[in-house]
């Protein structure tokens, strides 16, 4: 009798452990988390526009008025510079690491002059940049990322159909390029 009870207790402890392990490691196992899907979408260092229909990686935009573009990056070697300019009623940027934790976010009201100009770098690269800041980065916002890989999401709003073109142009002309210091 006692042995059966012991077996049941051991079983319950095992159930709790299994429950915790599954919950905490679920995002890594599904392969469907946002970062994996973005990598499946295409190369790094390019803004990929999303549409209302799911693309081949399964990403889509649910909101009928928002236009979204995403760029995955790896700043291990050189920093990355995000730039976008255009006249849209609203734009916002969010930078996430590979586990989809937010590192940084901003929108057009918190920008310098209304344009998007952000440099993403590791702490070592940032120290080097700050020591001798190139002229082109005089107005840029420098963001430090603890891990070199992640992705950036830029969203813009097109409140009416007539704003669609400006919103698409804003995202299509946005650049997500390595910054080599020249």
């Amino acid at each position: 009798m006692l042995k059966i009870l012991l077996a049941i207790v051991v079983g319950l402890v095992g159930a709790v452990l299994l429950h915790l392990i599954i919950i905490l490691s679920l995002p890594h196992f599904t392969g469907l988390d946002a970062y994996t899907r973005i990598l499946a979408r295409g190369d790094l260092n390019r803004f990929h526009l999303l549409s209302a229909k799911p693309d081949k990686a399964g990403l889509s935009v649910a909101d009928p008025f928002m236009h979204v573009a995403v760029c995955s990056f790896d700043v291990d070697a050189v920093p990355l510079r995000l730039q976008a300019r255009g006249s849209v009623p609203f734009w916002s940027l969010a930078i996430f690491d590979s586990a989809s934790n937010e590192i940084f976010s901003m929108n057009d009201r918190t920008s310098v002059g209304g344009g998007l100009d952000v440099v993403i770098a590791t702490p070592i690269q940032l120290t080097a940049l700050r020591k001798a800041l190139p002229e082109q980065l005089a107005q840029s916002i420098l963001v430090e990322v603890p891990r070199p890989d992640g992705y950036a999401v830029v969203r813009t709003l097109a409140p009416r159909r007539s704003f669609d073109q400006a919103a698409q142009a804003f995202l299509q002309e946005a650049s997500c390029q390595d910054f080599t210091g020249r």
Partner: protein
Amino acid sequence: MFRVPLLIALALSIAFGGGIVSTLYALNVTTGFGAIRLGAWEAFPNAQTAAADPYANPPRAGAATFLWGSAEGPPSGASVDDAGGGLAGGCSSPAGGKPPLARLWTLYAGNTGGQPFAVNPALPAGLNSWTVVRETDSSFTVTVSARAQPGNWLPLPTGNVSFRLTLTLLDTPTAGSSGLIDLSMPKVSLLGCGDA
């Protein structure tokens, strides 16, 4: 002779069975522990941070959309009306009130997964703060139903479809801070259920 293997089998089956069943149950309860409820609306303001509730991980684990940064504003969804009854297409649901405290907002109706309904492109797919028609005191009422209504109207597919309203506040000053409690969110109610 079979006692030991039987006991081990008992322990293992309880461990695996209990672990898997309880995990599935906990994940299917969509109101994660990090949710904030304001009337009929629920939002997850911390979903994108490292402090996110792991039970609410489905956005990271399997969803097809991105999380929102704190400068953008979390989308809040309403699946039930203010009285707690489920929102279904057989009724028409006016939602309205004072505008929420945000620079811009968008509102659309979708299925319970948050995906918008595929409606005729000639019909309004959603509303935002620029296109909504307001009263003289800048409050507004939006009617969500399968039949066209005057004023602000969001279409639904015919039939008794459960739907979810998603309100996305862009650039709200209280996003990501404890001040979210002060937000006045639109009231959602059910009116005129059944055919008439």
